[in-house]
């Protein structure tokens, strides 16, 4: 079956929109159909890039409610003065280090979704991150993540290839975990290479071919550990070859800042340009757990976020690929309204998400949560994060949201019709 695992991408000229046809064995395709798994395949070659802001970003110092005096009272040291904020409307503004994001906002490429969270917020990094990754706040089932479950609805992803990819992490993010689809994670592009085995070139080629064949063998127990290992090995060998091929031709169309996130997003741009058929990319920016001396660290992180995403979109635009790409950011929680005694902020609850790219319905969505009507000193959410996920899945990627997220999550209006 491995030999038939090919995805053919045909470019249709205009605006870099690609149509995707799938080749897979007929018997297998009908099995997929019979299982009712064929959802709405992503026919427009759209790409979602998830940027995780790990550690709990201080949302109040990201999208700042500058018109509310409570903000200034709660944060005598950490508040950003009114004359320095980058106003988005009469109520909220971006942090001054988000200048590039502000330019994109003015260019109608940013949706700010305010007041995002979930019921009974958990203030543990581990637990809250798991909740965002699994989209199952009520359960401790960590067998799969929201993006992994989405991919299971997609015959292309089930057929193999590289349907999604995590960049820069040693472990695969839980969000991309699935019992049936294996997603590669690439910690570093330079190290993502298979060393040739012993012997001369022909012996090396025979060994690699044999390994490819045996990892594609069907395990007796579907879903067991051997099955999982074989699927991982298979996607590893496939992705090593594909990444090796696409890495060569690309020329960057923008100058990226010298930051970790920028380096990761530059690789993502290269892989999108290389057209591997990857629909979902996942990168993480850590360090947002700012309990003490927050200001300098937080400013650097916001500048890194904003600069990297702006360069990324500029690069994609130069390759006429930007229309196909949307970036979405999240963090596991916001931080408390009041600053603490060590010039920092402690774990909080509701915060905002950004969706960025030409495909967003631009603007500020939803009111800023009240700074006085709080739960345990934290902001109340009015929008469930799964409503944003629903928009990204259904309105952007074209996956049905309900089987992935459950019932009742009305998509937030953040994607252009």
């Amino acid at each position, binding site marked *: 079956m491995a030999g038939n695992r090919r995805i053919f991408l045909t470019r249709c000229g205009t605006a870099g929109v690609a149509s995707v046809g799938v080749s897979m064995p007929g018997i297998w395709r009908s099995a997929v159909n019979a299982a009712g798994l064929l959802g709405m395949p992503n026919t427009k070659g759209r790409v979602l890039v998830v940027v995780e802001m790990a550690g709990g970003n201080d949302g109040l110092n990201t999208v700042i409610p500058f018109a509310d005096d409570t903000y200034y009272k709660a944060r005598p040291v950490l508040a950003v003065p009114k004359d320095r904020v980058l106003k988005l409307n009469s109520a909220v503004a971006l942090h001054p280090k988000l200048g590039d994001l502000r330019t994109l906002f003015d260019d109608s490429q940013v949706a700010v979704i305010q007041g995002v969270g979930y019921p009974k917020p958990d203030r543990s990094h581990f637990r809250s991150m798991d909740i965002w990754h699994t989209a199952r706040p009520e359960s401790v089932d960590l067998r799969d993540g929201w993006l992994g479950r989405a991919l299971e609805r997609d015959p292309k992803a089930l057929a193999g290839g590289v349907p999604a990819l995590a960049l820069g992490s040693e472990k695969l993010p839980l969000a991309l975990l699935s019992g049936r689809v294996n997603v590669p994670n690439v910690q570093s592009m330079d190290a*993502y290479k298979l060393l040739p085995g012993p*012997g001369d070139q022909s012996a090396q080629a025979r060994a690699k071919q044999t390994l490819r064949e045996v990892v594609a063998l069907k395990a007796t127990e579907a879903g067991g550990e051997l099955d999982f290992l074989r699927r991982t090995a298979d996607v590893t060998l496939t992705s090593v070859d594909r990444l090796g091929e696409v890495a060569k031709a690309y020329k960057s169309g923008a100058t990226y800042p010298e930051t970790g996130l920028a380096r990761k997003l530059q690789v993502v741009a290269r892989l999108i340009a290389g057209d591997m058929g990857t629909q979902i990319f996942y990168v993480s920016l850590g360090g947002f757990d700012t309990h003490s001396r927050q200001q300098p660290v937080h400013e650097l992180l916001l500048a890194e976020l904003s600069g990297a995403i702006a360069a990324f979109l500029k690069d994609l635009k130069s390759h006429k690929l930007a229309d196909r790409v949307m970036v979405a950011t999240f963090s596991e929680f916001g931080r408390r309204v009041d600053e603490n005694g060590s010039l920092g902020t402690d774990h909080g609850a509701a915060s905002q998400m950004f969706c960025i790219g030409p495909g967003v319905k631009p603007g500020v969505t939803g009111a800023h949560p009240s700074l006085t009507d709080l739960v345990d000193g934290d902001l109340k959410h009015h929008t469930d994060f799964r409503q944003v996920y629903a928009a990204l899945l259904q309105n952007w990627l074209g996956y049905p949201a309900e089987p992935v997220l459950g019932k009742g999550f009305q998509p937030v209006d953040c994607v252009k019709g």
Partner: protein
Amino acid sequence: MIPTVSAGPLAPHDFGPAGWSPADAAHLLRRAQYGASALDINRAHKAGPLATLERLCVPQPEEPQFERESALLRQTALDTGSTTNLQAWWLHRMLHSANPLVEKMTFLWHNLFATSNDKVKDAALMLAQNDLFRAQALGDYARLLHQIARDPAMLIWLDGNANRRRHPNENFAREVMELFSLGVGNYTEKDIQEAARCFTGWHMRDGEFWFNDIQHDTGSKTVLGSTGKFDGDAVIDICLNQPACPRFIAIRLLKTFVIPEPDSKTIQAVADSITKNKFILRPVLRELLASRLFFSPQTRAAIIKSPLDLVLGTQRALVSAPKLEPTAKCLDDLGQALFMPPTVKGWEGGRLWISSTTYLLRANFATEISTQPKYGPLIDLDAQSSQHQLDTPAQAVDHYARLLLAAELDAKLKTRLVSLASSADSPGNRDRGLLHLLLALPEYQLM
């Protein structure tokens, strides 16, 4: 009264008329120590199951040379304070100690009470904590839990000194319930707040535990339904008396030694054994490792190898004198740097060991082992070939598959391996090529 014969999963395994096989011996050794050499398997097979278990569970005298080397590596770690040297000291023990199960259990405690030198930054304190784990490796978990609450490295790791009467810090109190004794769902946030008060004033001074009575909250507290003027030891005793506690330890033992997803009945059987033995683990492990469950087909090749199992196991089977520092670096790349767990949760293991990045690293490790002396010289393949009469490709495939793979070799897989081995231009290249491929297989990642 007819005495009841235990028929549960922990009943002793009956090896039947076929008897204790080399595969049974290899299964026990791969689980109870870090891998097995051909010699290890042969020796255990000849000795029989009872003598092998006895050797694993009862303290064995160490060789004087081992003691000298270990002392030297320990002193080096103390002198330099470097984490790599700490790792080299422990890896040497894991590879060469006459008590390999002790080292495996010591690691189990390191993973349970996961403390990182990244924050502690003190080799002597990390060594002292490791000694504590080793002293109770197959010993008394209840005593260890009391000791770890006073352990200086732990006090640094979970901010003991920040836990003061007027400002309780919940860090240790939370982990003692969530990660050290009970598990999520067996306590409330209120229990943690109250337990934190009990541990106030449990501080560290000059590298030692110090009860700072000015900072201890002497008031009444209610923890897990009990009320009193409790201190930290009282909280630990309350935790130990929860039914969740032996179950929590049972799950850890089962996942480490037996099966990745134990069912509730099995967990309870092991928990009952732990309770019966008052948290002394030697008899519990002895029962478990001799049990029907342990030798059942469902537990064979059921566990995904940790990097330690993979790397040290490969070295034990194929490398004559493993080099410690490159080994430590390799384990770090694969995600298991000793003394540096990623978080207080330790290494979660199982499928989380495997991603495409780590799979590539595992495949590349297979290449390195079979082509370079980076991790130490490969055993003499020609000598193996003549000793075991590996005259045909099929004989070579069978021999190395039995040595390295936990499961029976699948027929389709065997055909391809024999075909590959047949294409080699010399017996030496044949076996080198075969080892490379066997070590890169998905099957080799299981034990």
